[in-house]
């Protein structure tokens, strides 16, 4: 890449290099360096890295960092304070009959009987009842939660009116 020096340029460079080669420090520069050495010989101590001056860009960067940190701190404070205020405001505005349960849900009635182990298990509604039968009201919400709403003894009239063939009755909550 660097072998593209034009021959005439190379010649000019060589001539200029020779001119530069004849350059020698002036007496003034020699004297200044000598004075520097003489002046420092008395004062010079084993050098050690002294405290550096604070540079302007470093000061600006430090101020910017402080400003950003302050902004973040204030933002965090506001962020923490806001939800509490919102919740308090919302709580005041809630109606008295407000329920936390979602409105979009399905209630199922499942027939169940006590097993010999003493637990309540779902049974086939068409099967003959061997013991006391109960209706278990299960509510399935659209947010995925399932809860047992209530368990009531099944009465003979209700048993015949079970609704769905599988014994599951859908109800609006």
């Amino acid at each position, binding site marked *: 890449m660097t072998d593209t020096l034009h021959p005439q340029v190379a010649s000019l460079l060589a001539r200029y290099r020779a001119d*530069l080669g004849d350059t020698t420090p002036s007496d003034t520069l020699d004297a200044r*360096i000598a004075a520097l050495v003489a002046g420092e010989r008395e004062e010079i101590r084993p050098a050690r890295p002294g405290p550096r001056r604070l540079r302007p860009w470093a000061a600006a960067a430090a101020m910017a960092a402080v400003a950003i940190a302050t902004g973040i701190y204030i933002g965090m404070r506001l962020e923490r304070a806001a939800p509490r205020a919102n919740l308090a405001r919302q709580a005041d505005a809630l109606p008295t009959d407000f329920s936390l349960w979602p409105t979009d849900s399905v209630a199922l009635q499942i027939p169940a009987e006590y097993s010999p182990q003493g637990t309540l298990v779902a049974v086939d509604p068409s099967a003959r009842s061997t013991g006391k039968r109960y209706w278990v009201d299960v509510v399935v919400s659209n947010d995925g939660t399932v809860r047992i709403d209530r368990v009531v003894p099944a009465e003979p009239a209700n048993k015949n009116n079970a609704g769905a063939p599988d014994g599951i009755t859908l109800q609006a909550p």
Partner: protein
Amino acid sequence: MKKNCEDSERMARLAAGDAHALHELYEKHGRALLRFSSAMCRSRQAAEDLVHDTFVALLRGPLLFDPAQGSVFAYLCGVLRHRVSRHFRQQRRWVELDGHDAQADHRADPADEIARSETSAVFRRALLELPLPHREVIALCDLEELPYHTVATILACPIGTVRSRLHRARALLTLRLASLELVDLVEEPPLMQLS
């Protein structure tokens, strides 16, 4: 290697408080530094001032030199290079009041003290018109004839960057010299590839 050891020893002495070591370093490297500075600066006086500043900086902070990073000469060239760069930044703050006077000063340029012939003087002016990064790579590689790895140490960049910058600097210089009719581009096929 022996020279480097001697220089390192002088730096150690300087760090220990022996100011005479500074004079020895000046005796050894002052002339080369002045050549580099003169190639970079228009004014001979400014070139000498910058060399002086370089040695002042060396005297104030000899512990800043790290032998693992390169030779003492490379370190001094690096310091001088920063001084030159700062010098030109400060120069930019000043505005010439009269363009005519500036032209007159240009003709009576103290730089011509360095160039002994009119051709060299024109060449020097063309070199001084190059951007600083290109000028310094020409000064170090072509005028001081330093090896690429030393130049890379001085410029604090990879060798590949030195090569590519030198290539670009030479091309710019050649075009500038051609515009001054010091170089005839038509007769030389290699430079046709540059355009």
